[in-house]
């Protein structure tokens, strides 16, 4: 697997992750690392997660499994069996990285503490991803994506103040933890080039989402202000917020100095006879105010002055709202972009797949599934170009135990007889 045209072709990763860390190993695998996806003998429980191909629940048809295990090879191994652990020990000696997401202390209880792995392979990097990290009073708390999004502050910032907080879609705590773990693992791999030794990378999902609180912590630290969710169905400042349209919603971000501003928007509305009285010079001082970045920020920090403006803002906002309501979201996107106005559609999966921009970026990536007799279209690379070592999905997710023979017999030199014995003992 030492493919010279891949970025991480010389790196082997043993993947013991569940949902919390499985995106970390996908990131490494799609950059060419040889990721050995280790599953219990009966298959990983992640295979039970839907949706499924044609909604047919089956361990080899989970789209969740497919999506997060691209470019990996798969072996079955029972770490709770002594023979399984012995084989794991042999694999550790061939590996550069182990990624695991067990509760703190579990690996140790199996005799697989970092210290032991390090004795077997001093260059090994062990990356541990848990809800709260390996140390501290909350290290043993039970966590899931939602609990981490709550404890990590993301939920307090998302949504409308009149509704209960919600978790962001797409398991963002798991994604964030996996991304940060991949960064930490790469830093450790880079450092190893100089030091020659590995290290333990401790990733807390909670800490992984904190940077995404944007300025909330700094608001509190510097000004004792608590940021909360401020979503509104009607934006306060016209042009900054969400608007309904004929087939969904658009998000408008007409901010001073970035793209065209209100003179262009009013012309656009005027061209369809929908500018109302906005051409009247009486509005000039309002345009001056809301097209000046600094003044706008000062206004946003001065509630009484902002309140005094609400009637004017509401009038402008109402006309814009009416103007946009009759158009489709893609129509608004095109017409706004032609005028360099920053209004974008709130896109769903279909919009993304059909978007000419995503098509130009070759976002969809075909992956063959011979067992299904078809090629499935996967979401593509986060980076669409790395000039000499392209991102790619090298293979579909592995079937249960698909590479047992390749790894155990061909690489480790176990005989078929030994493999049969290990299988009946429940070790692989």
């Amino acid at each position: 697997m030492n493919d010279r045209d891949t970025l991480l072709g010389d790196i082997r990763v043993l993947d013991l992750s569940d949902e919390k860390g499985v995106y970390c190993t996908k990131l490494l695998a799609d950059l060419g690392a040889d990721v050995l996806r280790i599953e219990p003998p009966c298959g990983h429980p992640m295979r039970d997660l839907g949706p499924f191909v044609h909604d047919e629940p089956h361990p080899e048809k989970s789209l969740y499994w497919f999506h997060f295990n691209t470019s990996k090879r798969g072996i079955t191994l029972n770490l709770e069996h002594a023979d399984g652990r012995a084989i794991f020990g042999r694999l550790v000696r061939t590996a550069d990285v182990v990624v695991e997401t067990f509760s703190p202390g579990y690996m140790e209880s199996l005799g697989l503490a970092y210290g032991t792995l390090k004795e077997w392979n001093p260059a090994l990097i062990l990356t541990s991803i848990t809800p709260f990290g390996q140390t501290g009073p909350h290290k043993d708390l039970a966590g899931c994506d939602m609990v981490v999004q709550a404890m990590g502050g993301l939920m307090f910032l998302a949504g409308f103040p009149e509704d209960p907080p919600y978790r962001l879609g797409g398991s963002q705590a798991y994604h964030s933890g996996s991304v940060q773990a991949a960064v930490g693992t790469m830093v450790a791999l880079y450092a190893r080039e100089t030091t020659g030794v590995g290290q333990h990378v401790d990733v807390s999902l909670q800490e992984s989402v904190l940077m995404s609180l944007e300025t909330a912590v700094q608001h509190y630290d510097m000004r004792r202000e608590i940021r909360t969710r401020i979503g509104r169905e009607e934006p306060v400042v016209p042009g900054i917020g969400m608007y309904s349209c004929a087939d969904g919603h658009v998000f408008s971000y007409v901010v001073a100095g970035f793209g065209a501003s209100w003179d262009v928007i009013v012309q656009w509305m005027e061209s369809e006879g929908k500018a109302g009285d906005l051409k009247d010079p009486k509005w000039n001082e309002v345009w001056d105010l809301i097209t000046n970045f600094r003044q706008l920020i000062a206004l946003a920090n001065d509630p009484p002055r902002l309140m005094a403006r609400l009637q004017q803002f509401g009038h402008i906002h109402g006309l814009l709202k009416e103007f946009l309501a009759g158009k489709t979201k893609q129509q608004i996107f095109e017409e706004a972009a032609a005028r360099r106005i920053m209004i974008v559609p709130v896109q769903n999966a279909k919009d993304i797949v059909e978007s000419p921009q995503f098509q130009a970026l070759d976002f969809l990536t075909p992956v063959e599934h011979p067992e299904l007799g078809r090629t499935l279209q996967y979401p593509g690379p986060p980076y669409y170009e790395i000039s000499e070592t392209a991102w790619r999905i090298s293979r579909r997710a592995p079937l249960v135990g698909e590479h047992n023979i390749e790894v155990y017999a061909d690489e480790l030199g176990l005989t078929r007889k030994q493999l049969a014995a290990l299988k009946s003992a429940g070790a692989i």
Partner: protein
Amino acid sequence: MEQGTLPFEGIRVCDFSWFAAAPVATKILADNGAQVIKMESATHPDGIRMASPLTPGKEEGLNVSGWFNNQNSSKICLGLNLAHPRAKDVYDRLIMASDVVVENFSPRMKDRLGLNYEDYAAKKPDLIWVDQPMQGLVGPHRNRAGFGAVITPLGGLSFLSGYAHRPPIGTGTNYTDYCINPGQLAVALIAVLRRRKKTGRGQHIVMAQVASAATILETAILDYTVNGRIQERGGNRIAHASPHGCYRCRGENRDCTVVTSLGPTPGRKNERWCVIAVFNDAQWQGFRRALGNPPWTRDPRFATLLGRKENEDELDRLVGEWTATHSPEEVTALLQKEGVPAGIVQDAEDILVRDPHLMSRGYYVYLDHPETGHSAYDGIPYKLSETPGRLSRPAPRIGEHTEYVCREVLGMSEEDINLLVVEGVLEIG
């Protein structure tokens, strides 16, 4: 602060990036030892320098934004007016003296500044170059600029977040700017740096921020391309757990200042919520024990996951009645004692000064900045046992390191520096 060798010591980054996603990526390099040289001027500052929160009483300054400072720890700043016709003489020299170049302009602006990888790589083949425009360098939308606030809706996350009956208002932040975009970029960039050690050659990395954003939607894209289904947002509910929600708790009822859509407003700290997640029947038994087995929890309709899913509205109402009489800390302690995933919906105060766990792990780092004083910075969310990174300095003031960079990195004479300052090419902060 302890001194140890950091992994990227000796790596120099010529950093044209501004606003958020790319600067957060270069922060990763800087906090791990790279010399990241940011270029801006008071004439054309990084716009985030003007954004809230600003140090009270110093709101007019360019060095007092907590937002900017947090994203630019460990970096230094060359005061260079990129719009000046002679600026290119300076940044060309800096590029040739660097290992990595990072820019996140729109392709239009990038071309105007003459920042084309090929031109420089021809002269310096070991150069690593990152373009991180919002939409990519190709395609019909390539010149449409924007922020994380529009990337989140464009990339599909807003549509999947929130309650089914409510509009897709999104994350409340420029979400993809802080972890997803910069983290994915850093993974590729560090891998390319590592490969360069072996091959001696640099590479060109291009990241389209919208594409990056659309890779973290779990199965939403695949479910559409395979099953033709458009996944919808479903609030806090998920298919394989119940209850799985956010519930109001007893408030503290004390004064505080809340940043609402109308700005900072006097409020009460009574917005307190918890989350509870019950994935299996064992956790349901734990949930019942934590509540002291009240009669409603013995209702046979709630005995199985299927039954709880079918009666979820009523279940959520009853759970909410219980949580309303407790603080989120009490709810969390009672449920966690029984092994049930539960937590506090923490606000920034909870996180910075009341979370004993985060404090014991020392995630937030306090640095002394000459204009903003002693203030909290996000630390490093991956703890490396042997080469832990460190925030080596607070964010730079604008032009703070002009003389240092010109003299020590570019080898310019005092006379040359002064001349460029007089001409308005360089600024000394």
